[in-house]
């Protein structure tokens, strides 16, 4: 029965999303009685659609939890022996379920738009656009990726879930990332609505959604990279894999959007540019979904090998992006131009921020899509890949330049700033940068110019953030949001520099009782034991961390075999001091009790994710401030000075 219930709920949701699209767009008209009725219908149908999508999703979760193998999706991706948590997270560990999760998040955002703001033309038009998006994705699910298809006869046991996905880090990575990807749809809808209605103030209305999306994207990317770090066993945290890039690009544009929308809201600058960024951010989310889900990339994420799915998503993307850009081309010239500002001003700083962010995104975009384009153009004869050196030479310098300029932004005044006064105010931050340089030169070996520069910039960023904190002492909490987020950047930068430039590595074959050395550590190999997990059998090695002949602690890297799925994964053992990670991975059995062990010492590795957390907290602070004073305040009277 579950399958039919879910199917029915999806059909109702589709019908309501169409009602939502039509009534929402009709409600975007002038304040006539008809339009007012349409707006009420749009709000009500949005909430209805949300309820039915939640119902459909809940049905699928129930089917996974109760192991209802009469549903093909459950039979293909679950197993009775799986721990409950992975039965639940297995819902989105496959193509069909993950698309349903996508629509669930979309409907929750639409519900929030309808619930938080009601009655205005702008909201109505935004709901109309959300309705169109929801309808398109629901059609996609019902026709190409239905998670409720039945199996007759139902098998006794399911095929299990890819063990790489049976991991806490990866279990919550997709919902986080989707909350970010799809959250950008709210900004997209508001931007399209603003173009239709020709109304100002959309940046203010969309701001909470932008912030939620950005926080979730930051968290989702950090979770994914943390997972890659401890699960893949290569000691790296970012591989410039196309799948990672697909999530980084929307983040870069969302970051640019947050800054540009701030200028639009506070001083009326960059009106059209902000609209374009909102469209671009969600477009990159859609492209990311296509890249990741269509199977054109080789990765753990590539679920869909069915070409009709790829085709459908591609048409959907073309319609959404093409439609939005056409609307932009048609309507943007009729909008009020951006307010003017001085060459030295907060606006100029934000403009530079946008130039660098969009530039770095362009570098990632070319590196990610060029191999695919070449493959398609050469009919599969020329397969190339673009590796980390490309990004180190394009993305890194652009981003570095951006970081160098970050402290000036909050320091300069709106419309007209004073560069000399700002530089003077920031002077103590240069002091902290100098301290960082001295510390790096004293502690780190070998010496590295890039590393020293990175720490100088990190000191500069954090120092400026501290100054910003002090300047705003006593202000309301949200005033500290920018300082916190910028300080987070500095923390992450230290982590990235530390691990990338000063990591030590050892690769040894050791027998029981033998020792190996990595960085300052001595490890004694104590042999392996077999351990039985809930749905896996693990070969667990034990290594003792020695200090002056005494055992300090024991580390247990392992290899797991999942019999249901017939697969093996490696689980690393990591011991962190907060400042340095000791990282062990168990390699191959070399006979006679001897095993290959790979060990890394990564200085400051935890800072990478700590910084991301601090950034996300900065975003959360800003969001909190927004939600607390959600009452509509009048737009600052800005006269376009043309």
């Amino acid at each position, binding site marked *: 029965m579950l399958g039919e219930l879910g199917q029915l709920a999806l059909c109702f949701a589709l019908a309501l999303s169409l009602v939502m699209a039509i009534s929402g767009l009709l409600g975007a008209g002038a304040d006539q009685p008809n339009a007012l009725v349409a707006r009420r219908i749009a709000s009500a149908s949005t909430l209805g659609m949300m309820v039915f999508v939640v119902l459909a999703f809940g049905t699928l979760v129930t089917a996974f939890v109760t192991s209802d193998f009469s549903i093909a999706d459950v039979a293909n991706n679950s197993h009775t022996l799986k721990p409950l948590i992975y039965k639940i997270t297995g819902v989105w560990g496959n193509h069909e379920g993950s698309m349903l999760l996508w629509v669930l998040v979309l409907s929750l955002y639409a519900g929030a738009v309808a619930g938080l703001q009601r009655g205005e033309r702008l909201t109505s038009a935004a709901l109309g656009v959300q309705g169109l998006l929801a309808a398109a994705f629901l059609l996609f699910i019902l026709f190409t990726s239905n998670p409720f298809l039945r199996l007759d006869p139902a098998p006794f046991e399911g095929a299990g879930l890819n063990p790489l996905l049976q991991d806490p880090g990866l279990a919550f990575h997709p919902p986080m990332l989707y909350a970010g990807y799809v959250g950008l749809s709210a900004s997209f809808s508001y931007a399209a609505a603003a173009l239709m209605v020709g109304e100002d103030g959309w940046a203010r209305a969309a701001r909470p959604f932008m912030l939620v999306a950005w926080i979730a994207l930051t968290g989702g990317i950090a979770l994914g990279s943390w997972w890659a770090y401890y699960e893949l066993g290569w000691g790296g945290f970012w591989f410039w894999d196309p799948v990672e890039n697909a999530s980084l690009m929307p983040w870069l544009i969302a970051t640019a959007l947050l800054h540009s929308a701030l200028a639009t809201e506070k001083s009326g600058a960059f009106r059209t540019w902000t609209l374009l960024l909102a469209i671009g951010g969600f477009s990159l989310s859609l492209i990311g979904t296509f890249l990741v889900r269509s199977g054109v990339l080789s990765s753990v994420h590539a679920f869909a090998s069915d070409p009709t799915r790829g085709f459908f998503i591609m048409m959907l993307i073309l319609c959404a992006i093409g439609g939005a850009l056409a609307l932009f081309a048609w309507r943007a010239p009729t909008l009020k131009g951006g307010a003017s500002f001085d060459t030295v001003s907060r606006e*100029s700083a934000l403009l530079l921020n946008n130039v660098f962010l969009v530039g770095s995104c362009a570098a990632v975009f070319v590196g990610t899509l060029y191999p695919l384009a070449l493959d398609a153009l050469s009919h599969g004869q020329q397969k190339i890949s673009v590796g980390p050196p490309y990004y180190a030479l394009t993305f890194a310098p652009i981003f570095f330049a951006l970081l160098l300029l970050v402290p000036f932004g909050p320091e300069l005044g709106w419309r007209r700033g004073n560069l000399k006064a700002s530089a003077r105010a920031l002077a103590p931050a240069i002091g902290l940068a100098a301290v960082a340089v001295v510390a790096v030169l004293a502690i780190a070996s070998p010496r590295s110019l890039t590393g020293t520069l990175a720490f100088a910039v990190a000191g500069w960023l954090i120092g400026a953030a501290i100054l910003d904190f002090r300047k705003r002492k006593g202000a309301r909490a949200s005033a500290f949001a920018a300082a916190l987020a910028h300080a987070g950047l500095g923390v992450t930068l230290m982590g990235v520099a530390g691990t990338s430039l000063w990591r030590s590595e050892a690769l040894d074959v050791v027998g029981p009782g033998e020792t190996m050395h990595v960085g300052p550590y001595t490890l004694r190999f104590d042999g392996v034991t077999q351990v039985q997990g809930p749905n896996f059998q693990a070969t667990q090695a034990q290594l003792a961390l020695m200090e002056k002949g005494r055992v300090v602690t024991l580390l247990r890297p392992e290899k797991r075999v999942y019999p249901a799925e*017939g697969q093996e994964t490696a689980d690393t053992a990591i011991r962190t001091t907060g400042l340095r990670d000791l990282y062990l991975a168990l390699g191959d059995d070399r006979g006679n009790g001897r095993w290959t062990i790979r060990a890394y010492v990564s200085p400051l590795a935890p800072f990478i994710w700590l910084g991301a957390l601090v950034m996300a907290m900065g975003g959360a602070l800003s969001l909190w401030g927004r939600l607390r004073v959600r009452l509509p305040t009048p737009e600052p009277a800005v006269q376009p000075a043309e």
Partner: protein
Amino acid sequence: MNMKKRRRLYFAAALVAAGGVLATAIVYELGNNVLYFYSPSDLATKHVGPGVAFRIGGLVEKASVHHGAGADVRFTVTDGARVVPIEFNGVLPALFREGQGVVATGALRPDGTFDASEVLAKHDEKYMPPEVVAALKRSGRWKEGE
């Protein structure tokens, strides 16, 4: 006003220059940093010089995996038509098996052995690296449903 206009002009010029530098850097670095993918058959016809980094993929030949001193490992990959010996110093991925698809990154030595710096295997039993599938199809050794 004139002063302001001039500053604005400099600002715009700087932006355009930065964009130009960026575009040049992207095109230039892209030309220098792409890795081509070759199957063993491609390698026989393309004459890739030693030391040039590229990626190679195919199936690990049965009974070809030999461990040397330390973490050294040697094996051969095949696309059914040709074979290439590979040498690797490192930990093989968990899903590395004889008869399964792998993709290795590295460069040829003068003796024709591929010196791999990285070896990737498939992620699960349903999945085969797309490059390997394409290479097997080209050499006519691909059976649907394999």
